[in-house]
């Protein structure tokens, strides 16, 4: 190749010796040169946030750090929404609302660790009554009926068939009658309703989208209010201001509260529980027809939380949940894993189709719960060791009206509409607006806040 300059071996090796390390160091050199990247901020103006639940609080915090003027309007007199800890009744952190941290791969876990949260590390497990015996998780792995149940649940990770009531799907798959209550506890109660109301596609989508881990983490000490809401105490929240009307027909968005007072902002983030969005909030002009249909398709039902104190535990020391047949399928052992010295508290979340039965019982509910426990633990042990109870009905909370959203039959994909803005002025956040399967969770609500804030900053 005439005209080209020859390089001898020594020259080449010398150049390689100088250039190689420089090339290998290039990523770290480049990374250390600049500040970390954030979304482009194209929006200048003020943002009104309706709702001081975790989505609204977290969104406000992010917006303020980006230099945006923010005001939060909260209907009640407290922040946190469906994060509410039981106050000075139990000897450990007990919760009326959010219970567990699901997995670690999300910002909620990072924020909690930042706030020095520690999680229970001692082994705790579920116990279920199956065909006349108590089974722990090891025994459940060997039992044909619970093996079949696990197979059915595992099949949902690849299910893309027709939508149907979850119980019908389980029956079609051959679920044993002796494990129906475990099915309802795991796929119904823990996901916000009951399996005779929920659509199987909504449940399957949640399982398929799982990307944060399967662990269910419980605080060793402290509670949700102390460990999470404490991060947002300094935000500008206007309490006792229930917003009922959102007008967005001009260049600004005008909010009106129940007393007729108005508040004007450039953009508004709606971060209220889904029941409130569906039933209490009006928009002028009306939201797009398709979006209204999507909002109506998503369901949210009330839940009655009943906390019971006993003289001593009558359940296994390592029990985390107790699942039994009957009307009330699941009891949470709230002090398990060393959280409570006495470990003598149970919590029952009554939701879905069982809720109305509980309401109909009125004051007879707790004796009914105790009798059901007696029938599986024997010797009237629950009734005889019962001390006292407290309860909270999320359905009766005027500005919450429910526990968590779920996806009924035919509503698959409905949450997608809530991930988009309306005319770049109205945005939605909150657990019900998570379209990737993490609805009904605290971390899911926080992820929707990130999405909404990114949209607010970038859309003009």
């Amino acid at each position, binding site marked *: *190749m005439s005209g*080209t300059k*020859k*390089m001898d*071996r020594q020259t*080449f*090796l010398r150049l*390689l010796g100088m250039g190689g390390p420089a*090339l*290998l160091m*290039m*990523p770290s050199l*480049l*990374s250390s040169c*600049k*500040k*970390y*990247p*954030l*979304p482009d901020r194209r929006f200048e103006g003020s943002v009104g946030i309706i709702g001081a639940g975790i989505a609204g609080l977290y969104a406000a*915090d*992010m917006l303020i*750090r*980006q230099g945006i003027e923010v005001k939060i309007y909260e209907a009640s007199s407290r922040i946190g929404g469906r994060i509410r800890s039981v106050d000075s009744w139990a000897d450990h952190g007990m919760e009326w609302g959010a219970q567990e941290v699901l*997995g*670690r*791969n*999300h*910002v909620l*876990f*990072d*924020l909690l*660790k*930042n706030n*020095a949260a520690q999680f229970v590390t001692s082994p705790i497990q579920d116990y279920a009554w199956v065909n006349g015996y108590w089974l722990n998780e090891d025994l459940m792995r060997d039992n044909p009926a619970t093996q079949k149940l696990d197979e059915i649940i595992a099949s949902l990770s690849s299910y893309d068939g027709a939508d149907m009531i979850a119980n019908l799907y389980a029956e079609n798959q051959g679920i044993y009658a002796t494990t129906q209550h475990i099915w309802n506890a795991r796929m119904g109660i823990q996901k916000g309703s009951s399996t005779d109301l929920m659509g199987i596609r909504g449940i399957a989508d949640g399982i398929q*989208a799982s*990307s*944060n*881990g399967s662990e269910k983490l419980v605080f060793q000490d402290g509670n949700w209010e102390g460990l999470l809401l404490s*991060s947002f105490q300094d935000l500008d929240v206007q309490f006792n201001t229930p917003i009922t009307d959102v007008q967005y027909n001009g260049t600004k968005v005008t909010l009106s509260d129940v007393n007729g007072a108005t508040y004007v902002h450039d953009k508004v983030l709606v971060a209220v529980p889904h029941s409130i969005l569906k039933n209490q909030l009006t928009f002028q002009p009306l939201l797009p027809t398709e979006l209204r249909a999507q909002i109506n398709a998503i369901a949210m039902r009330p839940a009655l939380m009943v906390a019971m104190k006993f003289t001593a535990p009558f359940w296994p020391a390592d029990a985390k949940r107790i699942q039994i047949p009957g009307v009330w399928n699941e009891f949470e052992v709230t002090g398990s894993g060393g959280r409570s010295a006495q470990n003598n508290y149970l919590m029952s979340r009554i939701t879905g189709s069982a809720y109305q039965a509980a309401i109909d019982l009125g004051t007879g509910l707790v004796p009914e719960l105790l009798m059901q426990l007696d029938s599986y633990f024997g010797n009237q042990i629950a009734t005889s060791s019962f001390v006292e109870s407290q309860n909270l009905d999320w359905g009766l909370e005027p500005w919450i009206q429910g526990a968590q959203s779920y996806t009924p039959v035919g509503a698959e994909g409905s949450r*997608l509409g809530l*991930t*988009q803005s309306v005319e770049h002025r109205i945005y939605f956040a909150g657990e019900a607006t*998570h*379209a*990737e399967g*993490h609805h009904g969770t605290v*971390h*899911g609500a*926080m*992820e929707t806040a*990130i*999405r909404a*804030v*990114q*949209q607010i*900053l*970038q859309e003009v």
Partner: protein
Amino acid sequence: MRWKIGLLLMLLLNANGYSQVSLDFRYQFFQNTQVNRSIEAFNLGHSYTGKGMQYLHHGYAASVGKIIKLSGPRSVFLQLQVPYQRLDQRFATPDVTIRTTHEQLGLTGELLFHPKALKGKMSTGPLGTRLFYSIGAGYAFARSGTWKNGEGVYLSSPKGSTLFTVGMGQRRAMIRSRIVVSPFIKIYASPWREIGDYQKAILGTALNAPSGSHIVWQTNFGIEFTWLKKEKTRKGFWRQLFHKRVKSATEI
């Protein structure tokens, strides 16, 4: 797609008498706007820490392969390669350390050529012309993972996608008349790469309203080492048609 991979693997393993083994090391610049948006969102969500993660841009890669001679004088070679690429990003606060990785294992087939040599106007050596161009395609499996405080919290299942590549390089120097050293640049484009897994690794969830393109661009700057085998005396069809002996790859 599996049969294509199988065919390429068969070619890679069976290419013998007219092939040379190559090994290369690369710096890689990775670019996908949706992944960038995910990292921006991650930083937004962690703004309470005052820290953030850099874009998932810079990574390393290495590749083994074979260069198979199709036509010596016309300088047309087929290069089959198995490139492994890795990108790594970290985020650390006193309480939380997050490491996000992206790995890719591919199989590519590229034609190495020079337009002038195709017309028979250039001298060629055992590895063709000194300056060469490449064009090809392949298939790559990629997966993303996240480790938090040393514990794996997310690892996606490997997902495959087609990639296309163009590039150029130069047979620049020789070591002991046996190893040809060739700096090169190659650009990979994957138009249909699954982006959701990156977002789940970085953010913990897929973005619902992503902006940006799905296309993943990977620009590779590297140095290739090719071992020249001694010529075999066996005469094949291609050799009879095109080949002529030369002293070395760089002394044409």
